[in-house]
């Protein structure tokens, strides 16, 4: 029997009737039209479906939608604020961190999560924090450097602070 699910997605209260076996990814993409979050493997291996649930990164392909009841979900679509792109998005764009772009939504969310855990991360910390996100295009280096770059910009205070579940900005 479907149950009523209420949650906040990128700052917006949303609801849907959801079968208990349905994943958060399916609900976001198919029921709520939030297709920014991607499905690459349905196996928690590629990270393309990464979202924040109350600030914690999860693979939404392997997270039951009803577990998200009452929680705040942040997807890639919530990153940019009214005043423009999040520093991570800008750094990815300017630093060659985006080629085909299919891994980008999950990669950005994992990057956001690791910067919330450590605003001044070492390269090693970034490498570990992004190790659950596969990218086949860039060779990772541009992405790692973009995260370092964005972190520095955010610490300098001339960027939008990472605000987590309510989205950037």
């Amino acid at each position, binding site marked *: 029997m479907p149950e009523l699910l209420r949650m906040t997605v990128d700052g917006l209260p949303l609801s849907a009737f959801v079968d208990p076996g349905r994943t958060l990814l399916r609900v976001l993409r198919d029921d709520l039209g939030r297709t920014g979050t991607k499905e690459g493997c349905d196996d928690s291996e590629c990270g393309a479906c990464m979202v924040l649930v109350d600030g914690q990164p999860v693979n939404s392909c392997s997270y039951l939608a009803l577990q998200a009841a009452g929680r705040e979900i942040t997807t890639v679509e919530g990153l940019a604020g009214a005043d423009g792109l999040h520093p991570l998005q800008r750094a990815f764009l300017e630093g060659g961190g985006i080629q*085909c772009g*299919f891994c980008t939504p999950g990669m950005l969310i994992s990057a956001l999560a690791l910067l919330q855990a450590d605003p001044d991360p070492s390269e090693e910390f970034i490498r570990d924090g992004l190790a659950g996100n596969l990218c086949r295009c860039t060779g*990772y280096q541009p992405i790692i450097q973009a995260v370092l770059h964005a972190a520095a910009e955010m610490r300098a205070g001339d960027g939008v602070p990472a605000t987590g579940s309510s989205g950037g900005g």
Partner: protein
Amino acid sequence: MQARPIRIADLVSPRIAAAHILDQDDEEAEAPVTENDQQPPADLPAPTPPWIRADGQAKATGQARYTADLAFPGLAHARLLLAGRAHARIVSLDTTRARSLPGVLAILTQDDVPEHRYGSFGYVLDRTLFARDVVRFEGEVVAAVAALTPEQAAAGVAAIEVEYEDLPPILDVEAALRPGSPLVHPAIDTYGHDPNLEPAGNLAGRSTIVKGDAAAAIAAAPIVVRERYVADMAHPVPIEPHAVTADWSGDRVTVFSSTQVPFAARSRTAEVLEIPEHRVRVVVSHLGGGFGGKCDFHFEGHVAALARAARRPVRLVLTRHEEFIAPDKVTHGMVVDVETGLDADGTILARKARILLDCGAYASDTPVLGQIAAMMIAGPYRIPAVDIEALSIYTNRTPSGSVRAPTGPQACWAVEQHHDVLAARVGLDPVAFRRLNLVHDGDEGPTRQRHEGDGAHQTLEAAVDRIQQGEPLGPGESIGIAAGWWFSAPGPSGAFVRIESDGSGRIVTGAQENGTGAVMALPILAAEELGMRPEDFAITYQDTDTGPYDGGSSGSQTTFNNGRAVIEAAREVKRQLLELAAVALEANVADLELRDGHAGVVGSPDRRVSIAELATTAHGGALLLARGSGMPPDAPEHDASACVGRLGFESFAAPTFFCHAVRIRLDPATGIVRTTKVITATDVGRVLNAPGALGQMTGGVVMALGNATLEGTVFGADGLQRNASLLDYKLLTTADAPEIEAIFIENPASNGGPRGSKGVGEPPIVPTAAAIANAITAATGVRVRRLPMTPERVWRAITTGDDGAAEANAPFGPSETALAELAGAGTGRR
């Protein structure tokens, strides 16, 4: 000496990778620029400004819609029934029960579509849309279901009743060649095929590269070395799985497909449905990577037929498991027997080789890739006598095909190890051996094409010089190098350029953007011609109804071919603009130029008119609109009269030369190889877009590292893939990515692409595994002749001396018991 360094530190952020460009008269590599070099030397040009790809913002914000994201009212969902067995006869196929299930709208089998055999490029017409009587690999499509929900489609597939009679799978390429072997295609003699091929038995195609009398030269050579190298099948693994949605309107169908080759997909869809091409429109939304795996025609025909039967739009999205087994584009399993005759001083006298390519159940484009493999085994070396044969052999595996630089990485891995073995045999170091034998400007290639430039040597010297500048080697550390070449792919391609009424520009092209940025960079070329900025142009692309023909994002050809078309169209628009400007400025066309968005009189800064004003005038009369479709540059002159199986690669057009140097750390107790640094030195003819070229280098190298040490398909004796998931088939992650430095050498090609450029997307994946293999030998003294060079295989070579190549006579892939080690070990995730 004029160096043209590209300051990556300025383009992006520091230390992503250092890259620099050398002009052809440079003698050695400049030190790469690092974050510490804040100011460019005064005598050098200003840094290239950052290049932001036009599709980047949509991709960064989640707005970019990929095929599976597209919404349609009344959308139905497709699921394929795949064989699930390598080789079997279909005794009965009953869809009655499945058709009665709730939500099921349509079910198709081969009985429901035209009985039409097709094949890539018409090489061998060995395939039907759905299996007819026999399944020949585990991912073969037996039936397709459309239903209201994905769950109902899956239930429909599960309810289809198929009775199979299993047949022994044909998995050993050598045994498949022997007389009396069971056949993958018993009716092969009745199949249509390319006139240059003679498919017979289990042989789909045979190509040779022959020059001189190699057998006699080897018989007379003072030193002869013969070796065998074996590579396993691997996968392209785009992060976006294949997706197709078909939507009919009357007798026309629009197919939204994650294809790299929209025009080929359109042709084949029309062919299998037996309708005219103009009634099929193929549109690519954003494409989530391809790496060759989305070349060719895959599921567009199935979904279009399903949508017609279901009378509503139908979407198919492959699961990751299906993505591993069903699309007929995997990296070839390969056996290379190579024999080289040397003079006592190390000069190569002759080479014979036989390459066995496992093409899987259907020929796909493997026959031409065999010809490419033969050219790769010859390599950019001075070899007076060559006799190389490539055989494309049917087995009951997922069909192979044009994955990024198809056959290149495996062939280079084999032959560049062979070269290190030859060097050691005559007491030369690997660099000296290559200095002695690599081609120089004017030397002749394996089919007597004349090489242009000294790119082979310049890239060798640049890579070697740079890797030697690193810290002294520590325990377990070593260095390896590998050189090679790859072709550019001249072909027909078209584009329109137009100026809108406000003076902004638009490029309309049939080219496909697979992620590399090649299409996104086309405005750079148009802007240069028209005195505008790249950001002044919008791009309409990857839609067969709007853009002129293009061959797709295969063969590193987008910039090479479509770039020429865009330049030609832009030059015609320039002519149109200057004619209007000549009237407006009362000047001669010959005295005018386009600069900074204006047409003006050369040398008279005040006499000018903006392109925007001219555009306003234009729409009152003549249109500012032009097409471009430059004739492809000629292939180099060559002599292939002694070669058979000639399918177009008898010479390598505008070849890219390269050398990679790697630094590794090897743990002999576990066999784990960790690559810590990779230098790529590449003669790309001309760098047109430095960030784009660099992105190909870093991405290609990391993909190559995966192919080198981790990625290989494991098969059971039943012919089924045992690691067809990302849980068991590991890719490199951020934790493994090494430091990469890219060096670009510029020797513009006379028969090249725009500004003498050459292909850049495929070369970076070719020599890395070979360089790592040579580094493994440098560290251990043993050779691993089996790809991928997994920890188990490296460890076994160290502890037992078994180089792995003897496994060639068994089915490809290690024993199933090795699976756990393969999945758990390696340089995988921490």
